[in-house]
């Protein structure tokens, strides 16, 4: 698998540098050619998001020593905008402003989420061009590839952590998954959503159970397992630009462990789903699942993939 994914663009992720601070890195999808995009030991730099054309990069930055929080990383620090290779970085606002920013399809606007509601901000003018109520959405919104909807984590569907979709024209919301869920991302064609889902359990792992990677139609239909392990929570699902692969991080701790080092990332073929890391307990739950083939990648947090070659260009 490493050979087939290596030329398919770049993956951005945040990870601890040798100096101990968080930096935003880029690597080839096989984990090779890792390079530091932010190079800023005085700040904690995290939560990278390539624009859909792969030419621009958003991330957040806060003074060194502050602790990355698994629930709040999208609103910690300042939002930064840079070229995809990390050059020409500039702050887009103050501390905590423009929280949970997500790219518009054309890379000219960002969607943000704050207590008063969603706001769409034009990047060139920094003007708010639209606001609308958030209706229970509270973290990790992601704008769809066609610009017509968003998915995010909502508390409006009978669980504290539901994945829901909001149609931007009508502001009608529907549940995608109502088990304990988070970190949703769109499939390349915008028809499906990949997300993390806590499997119902009988108190295993100290009462927390384990979090699996799932997918469903954006209308909530056809939910199915992508990949499960016993012993690690799977978070940060992100679909490759060509729709064939899924990226994720797998960690022992239920919050993805951003306060420490993040988690080893992995990559698998979506065509192999449903799949499991072989374990008697999982085999009983998913008797038809395939044995997973996972390409193990470096340790990081919230990976993001672009097919563009721009992240690898000299600064």
């Amino acid at each position, binding site marked *: 698998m490493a050979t087939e994914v290596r030329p398919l663009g770049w993956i951005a992720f945040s990870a601890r540098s040798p100096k101990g601070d968080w930096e935003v890195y880029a690597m080839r999808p096989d984990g090779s050619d890792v390079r530091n995009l932010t190079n800023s030991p005085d700040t904690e730099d995290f939560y990278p998001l390539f624009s859909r054309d792969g030419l621009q990069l958003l991330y957040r930055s806060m003074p060194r020593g502050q602790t990355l929080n698994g*629930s709040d990383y999208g609103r910690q620090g300042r939002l930064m905008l840079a070229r995809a290779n990390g050059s020409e970085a500039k702050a887009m606002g103050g501390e905590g402003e423009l929280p949970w920013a997500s790219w518009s399809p054309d890379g000219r606007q960002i969607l943000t*989420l704050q207590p008063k509601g969603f706001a769409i901000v034009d990047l060139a003018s920094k003007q708010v061009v639209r606001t609308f*109520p*958030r*209706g229970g959405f509270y973290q990790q919104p992601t704008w769809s590839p066609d610009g017509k909807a968003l998915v995010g984590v909502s*508390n409006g569907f009978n669980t504290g952590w539901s994945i829901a979709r909001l149609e931007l024209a009508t502001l009608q919301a529907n549940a995608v998954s109502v088990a304990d869920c988070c970190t949703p991302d769109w499939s390349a064609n915008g028809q499906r959503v990949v997300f993390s889902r806590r499997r119902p359990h009988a108190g295993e792992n100290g009462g927390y159970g384990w979090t699996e990677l799932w997918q469903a139609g954006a209308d909530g239909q056809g939910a199915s397992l992508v990949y499960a392990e016993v012993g690690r929570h799977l978070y940060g699902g992100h679909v490759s630009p060509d729709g064939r692969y899924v990226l994720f991080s797998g960690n022992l701790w239920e919050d993805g462990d951003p306060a420490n080092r993040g988690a080893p990332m992995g990559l698998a073929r979506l065509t192999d789903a449903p799949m499991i890391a072989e374990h008697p307990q999982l085999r009983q739950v998913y008797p038809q699942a395939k044995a997973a083939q996972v390409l193990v990648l470096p340790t990081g947090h919230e990976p993001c993939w672009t097919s563009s070659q721009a992240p690898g260009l000299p600064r």
Partner: protein
Amino acid sequence: MKRLGFILLAVLALAGLAWLWKPVPPKAAPFPADLGSVEVVAKLVEVPAGAVFHRELYHYATILRYEVVSCARGNLKPGEVIYVAHYDPWKPRAEAGDTRAGQIGGTVRSFVAGDRHHLALAAPLDDHYMGGLVDKYFGQHAGVTYWALRTDAE
């Protein structure tokens, strides 16, 4: 002999004083008159199974059902049922506040069905809280859900 009697009397007097003296509980901070938009005394009707649980890594709020006893500010009537979201309900109220939830406080240490609480409330919930929500009454209530800013034992 006289001296022994005096000592005995003194000991008895001290014992009597000790019996009469009761420790005075530390006074809670005065209930603020301007916190939130609603101030009520209300009875906690129940604590549904699974509504309050210990969770270290993630924060959440839980919605609890109250019956209003009296209303000092706002337009609630005695007997009216209200739904109130409490942040990280497994913590004593005085220890629940943080940078995420802001001003949370009060003397209540745990939620017990039947207890009366003196509450300072704000609404709508979305303006004050952005996070995981446990709602065991989902689909059973419409309208305002309040956000508890202060919860004192009554």
